[in-house]
């Protein structure tokens, strides 16, 4: 029973990681860029959300309605002001630029919000749960998982069906050829990053409802997103979603073995996948 419980809780935890991983998979797929400040942006949005909630008395979903457009704007500005200047064959400039940004953001947050851990009051939502066959399933984690699945589906449909999605895939396959057919890569990239960071607007609310956030937490979120993408296999948003579930289960099972082993067991599963199936569990060889 304990292991079934770990499996269920792990999948629910995976829903949270999927919301970080989608944006990372999208950005890497389109631009071959890793935004090192990805995790710090989640924390920044969470802290802004918590401050909004406490100053205006907003509920969690009102905070979300405010955060998602803000996150979209952040992503758009990030791409226009920084990433469009460093995107290219050489991975070094984009890594260094976002690395510096991560260092600056982390310490800026430390200045504004201090090192304390905070969380978003959910009005009882965070503690409600239902019991199925002796396993308690939290209502909030189920909502998180459903939203993650919805976001994955939406992203997948957008990439496959919509005109913008086609432009994205074209720019990802061959920038120059795409530019010749009338796609403006810079504005396509800006939209892609806006979406990638926009998803973090949802993630920020859920993260600060589920647990606490502190300015130094961003690095861990970045690593989880990265592991989920690699475990799942690059190149598809559903791969990132499934990879998140695997990572969540690995951490939950590890945590049941020993509380100090939770995060580590996620890392070990990641390294095992890298050793045995480097194209990812669901990736094409």
């Amino acid at each position, binding site marked *: 029973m304990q292991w079934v419980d770990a499996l269920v809780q792990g999948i629910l935890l995976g829903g949270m990681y999927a919301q970080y991983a989608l944006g990372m998979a999208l950005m890497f797929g389109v631009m071959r860029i*890793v935004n090192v400040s990805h995790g710090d942006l989640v924390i920044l949005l969470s802290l802004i959300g918590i401050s909004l909630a406490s100053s205006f008395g907003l509920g969690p979903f009102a905070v979300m309605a405010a955060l998602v457009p803000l996150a979209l704007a952040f992503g758009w500005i990030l791409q226009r002001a920084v990433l469009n200047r460093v995107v290219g064959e050489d991975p070094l400039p984009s*890594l260094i630029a976002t*690395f510096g940004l991560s*260092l600056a953001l982390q*310490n*800026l947050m430390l200045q504004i919000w201090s090192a304390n851990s905070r969380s978003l009051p959910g009005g009882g939502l965070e503690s409600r749960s239902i019991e199925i066959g002796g396993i308690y399933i939290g209502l909030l984690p189920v909502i998180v998982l459903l939203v993650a699945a919805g976001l994955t589906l939406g992203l997948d449909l957008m990439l496959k069906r919509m005109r913008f999605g086609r432009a994205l895939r074209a720019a990802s396959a061959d920038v120059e050829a795409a530019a010749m057919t009338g796609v403006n890569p810079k504005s396509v990239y800006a939209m892609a990053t806006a979406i990638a960071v926009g998803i973090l607007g949802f993630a920020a609310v859920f993260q600060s409802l589920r647990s606490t956030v502190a300015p130094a937490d961003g690095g861990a979120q970045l690593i989880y997103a*990265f592991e989920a993408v690699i475990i799942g296999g690059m190149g598809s948003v559903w791969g990132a979603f499934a990879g998140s579930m695997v990572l969540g289960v690995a951490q939950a099972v590890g945590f049941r073995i020993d509380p*100090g082993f939770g995060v580590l067991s996620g890392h070990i599963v990641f390294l095992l996948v890298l050793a045995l199936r480097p194209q990812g569990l669901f990736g094409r060889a």
Partner: protein
Amino acid sequence: MTSISTSADAVAAPPAIRVRRQTVSGVIALSLFVLVIVALSTMPWWAKTGTIRMVLELCCYIVAAQMWNMLAGYAGLVSVGQQAFIGVTGYAVFVLAQTFGINPFLAIPLALVVPALVAVPCYLLLHRLDGPYFAIGTWVVAEVFRLVASNLGWVNAGAGMSLAVMREYSGFERNVAMSVLCALMILVSIGGSYLFLSSRYGLALIAMRDNPVAASSQGINVGRLRFMIYVAAAVGCGFAGAVYFMAQLRINPPSAFDPMWSNVAIFIVMIGGIGTIEGVLIGALIYFVADRFFGEYGASYFVVLGVMTVLVALYARTGIWGMISKYWDAPWFPIRRHLLVERKDRA
């Protein structure tokens, strides 16, 4: 400097050529370098303990930065997880000296085997990740090491270890050891890098940096060269870690595997000028001075460092040394080869 004759006599008989590498600035810098090494190793006779400790810290930063420079600036391997090797070697020294009772000064060279052994499986796993994902992968490895050290009972888990055996040595003896180690570190990391870069391996490395595909078509084994650099950089960082934590006398998982090492190395190399030894030295001095003057501002100081790193990545990728050498071509560590054609009619 280089003149190529196209006259008929030159076509008939190939002109005698000579390759010149050393420059006047290089000779001056090399003499200064020797002086610095001598000054470093004689520190106990002219500097106070506080100064020696500060210099030791600076030397550790220079080594970590130069190793990152070799990785990112030449081998095309961007790592944000070199703290893995810094911490592992630091721990190895503590375990050897404290747990097994080996002389701590002997423990340092012995401990350098550890990062070399650890780097091999790390590289075999990580080289499967391309470009930016490699960087995040190195960070995961460093996190794994930190978590393992935090859970491992025989390195005292999260509480860390102390190097109590150092009490057997007098302050002067410790100062002598620290000074000699500083001189050795700089000699091996800067002098070693220079020798490596001016050898045929260095030529291969520079060719690889400029274009890996073209380099491998010229017969360079790109994969093996990258592997060599990765292991060498691990050992170099390990050396810095061993010396740093021996001077600190204490080690615990968060300090041993602190991502700050990567922040500092990246800042130093990017500000100073990536892909040059001169840049590392300039960057390290700037960081060191800035840290002394503005370190007390804590978080806002790091905000400035971060913003400066972004600005360099956006607008000045060659760093300070790149800007200097554009106007004043006087390398301290010349590695370019100048082809001199000797005209026979004048000889």
